[in-house]
């Protein structure tokens, strides 16, 4: 297993190099001259040249790339262009609020989706199944924006059950007071597509030969589903979670924007609007690294659901 992890870490090197190159290409090449962005519309050539020298963009590209690589590995991206805050500090302080929202969403959402998917698979082919599927399909087609706008208005303004928006420094206040509405929203909106997907996983497994064997043993349909099928369906479900997990950190940036949650997602939107390149670059590279680690963890987790997986 150690050998497997080492090999996988080794394989990450070219991918990481690729990510760095891609980000470098985007921001140092396509992104145009950052000095013009920084200096604003009214700036004399001298100021621009000065800024260029400070940023190192008057250097050849390979020097710039080297600076960027150094930044990545020293965790020092300098300061934000617009707020002059340290980039590392920006990232560290914005992760907390994002996780406060997204971890509960992930846990509750996945549990509910698996649960409902099992139930729907149990009554497959019936009217209930068809109705649930039609509702899910319809629900999926309404924009997330519409849900947020309507829910925020309905529960925040109209009924006043939850605060419209806000955030404090206290974790518990946040979790109990400001987080519930965004969490409920994200869970509800995420439920329909996940339910559909997981149901299809269950139905696919139900067509396998081993299900017939289990039935031939005289097992009840519930036991076939909960023991034999569920365990096998967990394998693609795990893959799916692995895909969504890295997104946890960008969080639902829409939720953060609407509910004024000072998280990573809102920060990125702000940075994009302000052309605050250092922040976007740093977040992109580190989240890519994180994603690679998550993928490794998911691969390790396969071992616990699928005995066919070996670490070679």
């Amino acid at each position, binding site marked *: 297993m150690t050998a497997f992890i080492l090999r996988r870490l080794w394989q990450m090197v070219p991918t990481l190099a690729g990510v760095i190159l891609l980000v470098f290409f985007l921001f140092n090449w396509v992104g145009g001259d950052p000095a013009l962005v920084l200096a604003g519309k009214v700036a004399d050539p001298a100021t621009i040249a000065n800024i260029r020298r400070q940023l190192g963009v008057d250097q050849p590209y390979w020097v710039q790339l080297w600076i960027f690589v150094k930044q990545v590995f020293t965790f020092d991206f300098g300061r934000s262009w617009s707020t002059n805050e340290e980039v590392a500090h920006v990232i560290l302080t914005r992760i907390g609020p994002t996780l406060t929202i997204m971890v509960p969403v992930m846990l509750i959402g996945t549990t509910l989706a698996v649960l409902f998917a099992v139930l729907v698979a149990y009554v497959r082919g019936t009217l209930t199944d068809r109705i649930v599927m039609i509702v899910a399909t319809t629900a999926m087609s309404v924009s997330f924006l519409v849900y947020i706008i309507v829910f925020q208005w309905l529960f925040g303004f109209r009924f006043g059950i939850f605060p419209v928006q806000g955030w404090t420094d206290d974790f518990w206040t946040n979790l109990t007071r400001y987080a519930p509405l965004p969490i409920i929203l994200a869970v509800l909106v995420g439920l329909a597509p996940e339910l559909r997907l997981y149901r299809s996983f269950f139905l696919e497994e139900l067509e396998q*030969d081993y299900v017939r064997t289990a039935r031939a043993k*005289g097992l009840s349909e519930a036991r076939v589903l909960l023991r034999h099928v569920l365990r096998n369906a967990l394998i693609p479900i795990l893959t799916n979670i692995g895909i969504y997990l890295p997104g946890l950190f960008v969080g639902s940036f829409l939720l953060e924007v609407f509910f004024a949650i000072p998280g990573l997602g809102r920060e990125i939107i702000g940075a994009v609007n302000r052309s605050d390149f250092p922040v976007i670059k740093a977040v992109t590279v580190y989240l890519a690294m994180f994603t690679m680690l998550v993928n490794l963890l998911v691969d390790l987790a396969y071992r616990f659901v699928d005995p066919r997986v070996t670490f070679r």
Partner: protein
Amino acid sequence: MTGGEPSADTAALRPLLEVSELRVAFRAERHTLTEAVKGVSFAVGGQSTVALVGESGSGKSVSAMSIVRLLPENAEIAPGSRIVYGGQDLLAATPAAMRNLRGRDIAVIFQEPMTSLNPVFTIGDQIAEALRRHVRLGARAAAARAVELLDEVGIPRPAQRVRSYPHEMSGGQQQRAMIAMAIACEPRLLIADEPTTALDVTIQRQIIELLARLREKHQMSMLFITHDLGLVGEIADDVVVMQSGEVREQGTAREIFETPRHPYTRALLACRPTLDHRPARLAVIADFVDGRQPPALSDAPRSVNGHDPVVLEVRNLRKVFCMKKGLFSHEAVAAVDGVSFTLRRGHTLGVVGESGSGKTTVGLTVMRLHEASGGEVRFEGTDLLALSDAQMQPYRRRIQIVFQNPYASLNPRFTVGHILLEPMAIHGIGSGTPERLAIARQLLRRVGLAEDALGRYPHEFSGGQRQRIAIARCLTLKPDVLICDESVSALDVSVQAQVLNLLQDLQDELALSYIFISHDLTVVKYMSDEVLVMSGGRCVELASADEIYRAPRDEYTRRLLGSIPQGWRTKTGV
């Protein structure tokens, strides 16, 4: 045990299982019903083996699965059908009652052991599950019993193997584990649905013997579903012959094999080649159904003849596959390791071996569909392996191949016309489309298809017809050598006979040389002048066909030949 209270002697007289007027239909769209089983009746007596025999689409598996009600969800059993087991009408039983019956009274073994076992649970878990469900054993007692059962079905080191997952076992062991699971609760009826079809012939022999022994020991009855009459002759007491959803004939095994009455049964018995005869042509169903007498079957000699020119000479052929292993290292696996043979014009070289023996790789490497790792393939003196791709192109025409799976070997999006014209266009055969179309029409007629096939798509044809199209595609190039890679293995025996006859005719007519690759020793014996026996990538024995079957020199060859189901003959002989 079940149902009413019949008096002791009527219960003894009544068969264990009675199926009468069974009709099963499948709902395809919302409104269309296709009948798969059309009024089938048969019975299984106590402690006997009944074989349901038929080709694909005969409804044999559907009939058997109706008994335990394990049909697909779109299947419907028509009212009026009756399945009585031990006095109880199974079609009227509640789902709960059926579940109590399944696994305890009636157990089932399926065709594909690999997919029929749940991949994420250990063998022990899966066996214990049945015990805990029906015999209400505790976890520990059930686990202990699972070890005993594995031992009983002949799995070595059962105490360790009980913790294995299915993927850690070979196909034969998986099927043994399936059997252990089936007999766990001492059922009275065992339904075996093609239990050995997915297995190699030597493993098949072991499983058949195991099943016969267990049936005897546990005083079970067995319903054995198969397409292979050879197996039936060895294992069955009674035989039910089915065709397109109907019972054609039923009786004791002796009656069926010695005095078959129905033409279909007679045809099935005749169209399969045997080891001791080699008729010039195989009988086909059509010879029997019209009530005509089958043609006189004189034996045709086959042997290697030193006078015919050599077309293909293979020397020391090697093919190594690289498997990634560890961080940087690769492991080389030799799929073909030093195989040599000579092929003469108008003759057939048979290549036999079990799965993984490298026989298919030989075929693919010879015609450079795989790049060889070493050796020579001399075609009329030119070493094909030394040619560049461009130099190889004219030789591609000379060696052609017919693959195993008729459903995968024709491009589903091409019409038959397109399929036949493409090779001619590539190699510039015929002056233009009209001439090529004429050649295609003539070839379609030659392989026994109507000319209107040109505009149709492969999915409109049956397996046998598709194989004919594949043969026609090869013939468009007027090849010298035809490699038949398991070309008839996926076909029903009656269709197999027709395609084999076609291949024989074409060989006589066009002086083709065949490399006939198959796992089926009987068919290889029938088709070949010389036979190459392969095992683990190596040539184990190479000799003339008659010699190899009469006096095999190698131990492996002997074991292989000893495993061939001998049908009725050996049973009377014992």
